[in-house]
């Protein structure tokens, strides 16, 4: 809920926690009216205007978009059959069309700005925040990235990431178990990432739901941790199947827990044959140089140097 106008941003609250302008700025314009801008194009200027940015829900009597891109044809109405009052309307509508459309606009906007966005996903407590904290501190001055934090409640993670030196926006989903593309569009608008920069989304800790929702990221990183056990990839194949990089974190705990590394490795290979795999520990620093090199290789600011 926005404290200024009382509107709900799809039930999610989006706040800039650390970085310039971190007082009351958030995902919508108070001067732009609440109508959902219909059929507008891409404006890649200073602010984030990814075509369909909208932090407002469709719940509160705001304007309703007309004639937007996805299959806006109304369904074909079949003639009622004899003795039957019901009519069948063929829709053939992809259920995630709206999310995928907004994700596509996020992706286009980021590409035009030369910004690389990563979607980092894991179960709760697997070590996403700790990994990002250490990464920010170790790479300070050589590679900078902004962070979009997704949690149901609290800005605890954003506060940690901000203290590590990153510009960070917190999305609180309320009861939502995942981030969606509209929330990320709002967060990008607040974050306003510089051209040629990197944005890392720390998704809501969950190995199920976030796999469904394209956010407009260029790269998907899935993190599993040693104490969770080696069976996570086979238990959550939908998540691992879509990964570009699979990280095994808390490697410093391998001597103390029963973790079948061979099984884990062969399962990840079977589920996601194209994914790169790395083992690391943000506590001891083991494996971190590989992760840093992987980030540097993708750093848009370094491209063409």
């Amino acid at each position, binding site marked *: 809920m926005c404290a200024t106008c009382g509107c709900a941003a799809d039930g999610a609250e989006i706040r800039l926690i650390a970085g310039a302008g971190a007082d009351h700025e958030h995902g919508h314009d108070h001067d732009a009216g609440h109508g959902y801008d219909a059929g507008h194009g891409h404006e890649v200027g200073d602010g984030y205007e990814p075509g369909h940015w909208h932090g407002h829900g*469709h719940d509160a009597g705001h304007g*309703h978009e007309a004639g937007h891109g996805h299959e806006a044809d*109304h*369904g074909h*109405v079949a003639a009622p059959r004899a003795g039957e*009052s*019901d*009519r*069948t*309307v*063929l*829709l*053939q*509508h*992809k*259920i*995630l*069309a*709206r*999310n995928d459309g907004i994700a596509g606009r996020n992706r286009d906007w980021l590409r035009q700005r030369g910004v690389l966005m990563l979607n980092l996903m894991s179960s709760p407590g697997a070590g996403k925040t700790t990994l990002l904290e250490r990464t920010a501190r170790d790479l300070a001055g050589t590679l900078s990235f902004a962070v979009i934090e997704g949690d149901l409640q609290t800005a605890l993670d954003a506060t940690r990431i901000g203290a590590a030196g990153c510009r960070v926006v917190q999305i609180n989903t309320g009861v*939502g*178990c*995942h981030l*969606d593309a509209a929330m990320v569009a709002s967060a990008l608008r607040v974050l306003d990432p510089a051209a040629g920069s990197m944005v890392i989304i720390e998704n809501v800790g969950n190995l*199920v*739901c976030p*796999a*469904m*929702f394209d956010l407009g990221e260029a790269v998907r990183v899935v993190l599993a941790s040693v104490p969770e056990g080696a069976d996570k990839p*086979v238990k959550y*194949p*939908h998540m691992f*199947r879509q990964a570009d990089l699979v990280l095994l974190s808390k490697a410093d705990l391998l001597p103390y827990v029963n973790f079948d590394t061979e099984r884990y490795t062969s399962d990840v*290979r*079977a*589920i996601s*044959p194209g994914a790169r795999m790395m083992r690391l520990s943000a506590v001891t620093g083991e494996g971190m140089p590989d992760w840093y090199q992987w980030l540097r290789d993708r750093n848009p600011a370094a491209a063409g140097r």
Partner: protein
Amino acid sequence: MHELAITERVIEAVTERLPGTLITCVRLEIGPLSGVVADSVRFCFDLATEGTNLEGARLEIVEPAARCHCRTCGSDFEPGGPILLCDCGSADVAVLAGQDLKILSVQVA
């Protein structure tokens, strides 16, 4: 429990396409590789449609079989589960069908 969000997207899409129309039946296609559990959608549906034009509508879910193509041996096969492994042992597999998540049709009163 993204099935609740999925169900809400269904309601949103139907009411946008057919504003002010009373819906008596919704037919969905949920592929076995879509990542959505049909039973969970059934569980959510009555609750999520309450107070909308879809309230009381019947829900029909079509669950087509998944089909994959093995890039190693060239055969097409139906995967035995969410881990897409060909009988030849290869994991280098393309999904041909079973990932879709669609509203097929609705019946209006």
